[in-house]
């Protein structure tokens, strides 16, 4: 068995620009980790934007960011306080 060392999965933080959302639900449907869910609330345009239901599950795959037709959602790498990890880079 190959030893990969002490690999920690990257955690992502999802940012949602609620008022830019038109409620298509592409991100909710295609998030492989079910991080997102459509909310009941309305944004200024009267659409239901998604909300982050389970942030811990996010693995920074950025699929929501790529699929969003409104440029309304994106992901950054979640900083771990103890490691001080930063930046956008991704292995």
């Amino acid at each position, binding site marked *: 068995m190959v030893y990969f060392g002490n690999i920690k999965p990257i955690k992502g933080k999802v940012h949602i620009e609620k008022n830019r959302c038109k409620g*298509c639900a*592409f991100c909710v449907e295609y998030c492989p980790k079910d991080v997102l869910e459509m909310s009941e609330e309305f944004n200024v345009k009267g659409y239901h934007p998604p909300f982050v239901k389970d942030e811990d599950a996010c693995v920074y795959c950025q699929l929501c960011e*790529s699929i969003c*037709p409104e440029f309304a959602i*994106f992901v*950054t790498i979640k900083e771990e306080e103890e490691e001080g990890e930063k930046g956008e880079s991704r292995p």
Partner: protein
Amino acid sequence: MTKEDRLEAKNPSEKFLRMDRIPHIWCPGCGIGTVVTSFNEALKKSKIDLDDVVVVSGIGCTGRVAGYVKLDSFHSTHGRAIPFATGLKLANPNLNVVVFSGDGDIFGIGGNHFIHAARRNMDITVICVNNFNYAMTGGQVAATTPIGANASTAPYGNFEFSFSLPYLAEAAGATYVARWTALHLRRVTKSIQEALAKPGFSLIEVITPCVTLYARRNRLGDGLNLLKYYYDKSVIEHGADTRTLDISYQGKLVVGKFIDKEKPTFLHAMNEHMTKILGDKFVKYGE
């Protein structure tokens, strides 16, 4: 101050967009925005100087792309994005010229320009968002509407044969041809990257949901349903014979990279030929 504020994070797409024009005009569930994100991603990954990239659009829903990308961008007339792009490319051969428009614009009213630019191997990249109808004007039948599909000017269903865009492109002489659905996010990005790097005429057809018109008239559900449907119906067959790529209503969608070949571009051929014939008398152009 929360941690989120400290990040001052911005959507990475904003770098590529005219944010003073967002939100855009596209309907909820429309896939054009997704294709634009794939394009932005391709620009980022290509690492080309964005000052050299020009986007030309025609008229229609996808024709509005030129107005949202933060590049030198031209929103021309219906069907004429390709000749506009031809003029730009020939005037300044350093430009990386992208035509971003819809199926009605490029293959309906502008079909003649498409085949001729492909024939000449004009060094431009054509990204064609195919939503199977004329959406901006209200869902009329297009040169791409599959037989049997309903459209506002085909209220009893379409009975005209439609174009197979990759087949047409190959026959006309294109050097790079790919087809994806909008949900093939990273494959669209990769194809755009390859096309941008390709000296020659490239076509990337992206099958994209039109929720307000095509989906509604054909009772195909909402944007999400259609996005998923196209994806589920797609079969990746790289290098497939372009004669086999017809799209039938509710049938399978063969996607992939079909053509990727080398051929001298218009300017390259011109310089080579003229040098051979005229020798020193010829002033080389754009090199």
